[in-house]
């Protein structure tokens, strides 16, 4: 079966600095992989490179079996959808029109949206509980609603791979869960592959099938959340002591050393 994302020997440099150093990765359809790692580890560089949004110096990225380097912009956008860490929200743009931007890759550039495009948008807005605010300007939405609108825009691309860069930035706990539940539901029901970065290790462990720990541009460990989120691994790569508790099979990462009762 063709992988949604297949990365081999991915290397990105800026001047003499190596941001990604020979990263190999494979993500199957329906799988959720989350990149974790300390600041500056190369997580955002990785998701930008995987989504075809930055040049790479070496290696190969394949989306659904097609070499990213040979893909035109629209073909690429039909294979990978991207949710940025800090989305740009055009002032005054209604939610429906904002989400409709995600259909650019489905028609010739100068052609107007088709009724099918509008139908897809309507359906995604309903699924993400955004239908009632479709005519409101995006900037008037709350943080959680706004992030759902950004995810809706990515979903209407109908790409088999969804890449999210820190999708919970700036959200409170409830909205963090709400946004990640939306992604989880879409993954379950449509079997899309998800690649995300997350700073919150507990959330990362709760939602992802697999975690990959990046440090200094290299993948140092990949595995299930319980395999990766260990006190020793996190202390070595984050440089702080943490306590990892097991709550119903989900590793919960608590900053600081274990305290004796």
């Amino acid at each position: 079966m063709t992988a949604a994302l297949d990365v081999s020997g991915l290397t990105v440099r800026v001047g003499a600095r190596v941001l990604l150093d020979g990263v190999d990765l494979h993500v199957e359809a329906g799988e959720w992989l989350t990149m974790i790692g300390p600041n500056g580890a190369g997580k955002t560089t990785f998701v930008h490179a995987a989504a075809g949004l930055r040049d790479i110096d070496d290696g190969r990225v394949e989306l659904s079996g097609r070499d990213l380097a040979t893909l035109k912009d629209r073909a690429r956008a039909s294979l990978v959808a991207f949710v940025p860490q800090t989305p740009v929200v055009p002032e005054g743009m209604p939610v429906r029109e904002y989400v409709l931007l995600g259909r650019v890759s489905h028609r010739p550039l100068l052609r107007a949206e088709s009724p099918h495009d509008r139908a897809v948008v309507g359906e995604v807005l309903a699924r993400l509980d955004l239908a009632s605010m479709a005519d409101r300007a995006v900037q008037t939405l709350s943080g959680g609603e706004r992030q759902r609108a950004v995810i809706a825009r990515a979903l209407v691309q109908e790409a088999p791979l969804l890449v999210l860069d820190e999708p919970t930035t700036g959200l409170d706990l409830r909205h963090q869960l709400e946004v990640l539940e939306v992604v989880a539901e879409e993954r379950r029901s449509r079997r899309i592959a998800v690649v995300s970065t997350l700073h919150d290790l507990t959330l990362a462990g709760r939602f992802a099938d697999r975690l990959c720990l990046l440090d200094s541009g290299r993948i140092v460990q990949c595995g299930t959340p319980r395999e990766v989120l260990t006190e020793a691994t996190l202390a070595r790569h984050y440089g702080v002591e943490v306590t990892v508790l097991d709550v119903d099979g989900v590793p919960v990462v608590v900053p600081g050393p274990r305290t004796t009762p």
Partner: protein
Amino acid sequence: MTRQGRAARPTSSLRPLHVVVAAGFACAAALVGLSVGPVHVPVTSILSDIRWHLGIGGQPLGQVDAVIVWTLRAPRVVLGLLVGGTLAVAGGSYQGVFRNPLADPYLLGIAAGAGLGATIAIVVIGGGADTPGVTPIFAFAGGLVAVVATWLVAGRGATGPTTLILAGIAVASMFAAVQTLLQQSSAVAVTHVYYWLLGSLVGATWGGILGTAPYMALSVAVCLSCARLLDVLSVGELESASLGLPVVAVRTIVIAAASLGAAAAVSAAGLIGFVGIVVPHAVRLLVGVSYRRILVLSLFGGAGFLVLADVLARVVIPDAELPIGVVTAILGVPFFVLVLHVRKLRLR
């Protein structure tokens, strides 16, 4: 009205009613432009004359009035419509490409380039005298040379907004310095260059219009057809690229088209400021942020605005004319302050 209600816009697509109102404004302005002047010709008489020409009734104008309306005023009105519409569309397109509401059609050095071109024509070709046949060609070429120079200074492929704007400032400064140097060599030339810089529709002729209209029409056609893509670009370079937009290609095409139109407009009527900023802004305030609306409505709005400004330029001082650039600035500055004030209130 609530904050939410005020900021909300039901849709971004163009509505027929908007187009009818905007086109009606431009037509009404054109009729006023044909009617008003030292000799007043009633609008009803002009409409009757048009019907007579079309063979659907009406009465022809008297010989003198017909010459005044169709030989003296019509080229001027048509040029005003073309230049105003083109500058407004070019300004709106620049604002979309640079994602900056303060961008105007002269951002990449066209004004300085055209100014230098006109100065070379007047000082070098005309020996200090006005050169009506040559100045527009040199101004047009100068404007385009400046944009190309800006592109080259910014670096090949470097179409990021900030780099281009900085390169535009550098090129404009250099061209302005050369222009000043040339002007210093001829005291007579200073007057001609000065009047040219202020902008005017006085010299409008059908021949001149035919020479520049194709460039303006091409520019407007390309910009309007890219309006939908400017809406996509409004989410920024990274996100629009992720949506499948060929960002660099779209930027290059829109900037080239808008620059061509602005250079043609400047060569035909001199430097006319504020139309390219104020009109798209006003349209944005009235109908929302979609470039599908802004550009089409700016075309009509800019056309009508410049014709009305020209009417004011003709009638404010009896037996004399104000430079149209002065009128657009006098009308534009208070309007601009109002726009900024309203914008601030909306964001509060």
